[in-house]
């Protein structure tokens, strides 16, 4: 006869198991919010349509940040866009992941000496996966998404936790680059 006794799990253990279950479903149905700021966005249509068919990985586009899991930053970010990106990132519900596509998000790319374009995206928002290239081809972009799924599986996609843990550092960097993160323009006032 099988024993019906079981050891009572601690709360942490139960949470961990639920997170593993959640991560399984999450990584197999990722909703992307595409913040197509730069030219690398041109790699997304072939990745999404029949040529590479992102849907077979369970990924799909989402229109609002509130319902999206992944924030794609495709290309360079000017200071004006960075301000809106931070707004968008903070609106997303957790857990949230960021994929930086193109060399502009890594080190500034060809805009490394521009007065308007930031150089490293991961100083302002935490980035989980970078896809290098100027621009990366579609296989590389798809590979980046597969990498992200692997990172979620192995619990290494912890950018959003890092954003809580080192929030002061991120805030200080944002302040140093932008002055004030709050948007002041005629549409917001």
């Amino acid at each position, binding site marked *: 006869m099988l024993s019906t006794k079981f050891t009572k799990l601690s709360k942490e253990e139960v949470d961990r198991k639920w997170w593993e279950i959640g991560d399984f479903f999450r990584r197999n149905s990722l909703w992307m919010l595409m913040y197509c700021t730069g030219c690398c966005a041109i790699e997304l249509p072939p990745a999404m349509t029949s040529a590479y068919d992102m849907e077979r990985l369970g990924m799909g586009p989402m229109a609002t940040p509130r319902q999206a899991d992944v924030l794609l930053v495709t290309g360079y970010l000017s*200071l*004006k866009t960075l*301000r809106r990106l931070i707004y968008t990132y903070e609106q997303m519900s957790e857990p949230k992941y960021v994929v930086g596509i193109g060399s502009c998000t*890594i*080190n*500034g790319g060809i805009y*490394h*000496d*521009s*007065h*308007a*374009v*930031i*150089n*490293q995206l991961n*100083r302002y928002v935490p980035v989980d996966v970078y896809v290098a290239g100027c621009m990366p081809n579609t296989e590389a972009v798809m590979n980046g998404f597969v990498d992200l799924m692997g990172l979620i599986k192995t619990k290494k996609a912890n950018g959003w936790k890092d954003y809580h843990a080192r929030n002061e550092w991120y805030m200080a*960097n944002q302040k*140093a*680059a*932008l*002055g*004030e993160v709050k*948007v*002041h*323009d*005629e549409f917001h006032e």
Partner: protein
Amino acid sequence: MTNSMSNVKMVSEIIENSYKVLKKEVISQYQVSFEVNKDDVHSILTLLKTSGWIQLSYLSAIDWPEENEFELVYIVFNWDKAVHIQIRTRLNRENPVMNSILPIFPGCKYYERETHEFFGIKFPGNPGHEKQLILEEWDDIPPLRKDFDPRAYSDRKFVKREYSNDFVNLNGEKSKQIAREERKEKIIKVRKGGRK
């Protein structure tokens, strides 16, 4: 509709008969440029608007630091005659002020704001032209002036990513580039029958 070269001629006649043109340049059969005095700009633009150049296509500035001047360029556009007209005028670089053309072309509102932001030219008559438009919270001299150094600004404001090593050859392999060049040389040598 007449052909375009006579359009250019017609435009030249309209402007040169009534105003002093400092420099005229026919860029192509569809584009002509006039440099005029600062005080004549408004009446010339009014004249052009009544003669059919009803759309302000662009307004921007050029910085000439050696001559200590800004050059303002107004480009007007006609939907019936295929000629773009550029009206250019020079402003003093120390205190650049140009009266707004808002009553003539209301579409200049944002162009003037942009020019103010990137060059620091003031446009009295355009309410709110000093509000920020593209550069938000800008903290330096206007960035399209020639004496602004974008690289120094970028180095100061945005942290560069640091790479510890440029390149490490871990297993001591020969560079593929060198191997490729050697192969190419060999092919050329064989093709020429052993002669250099």
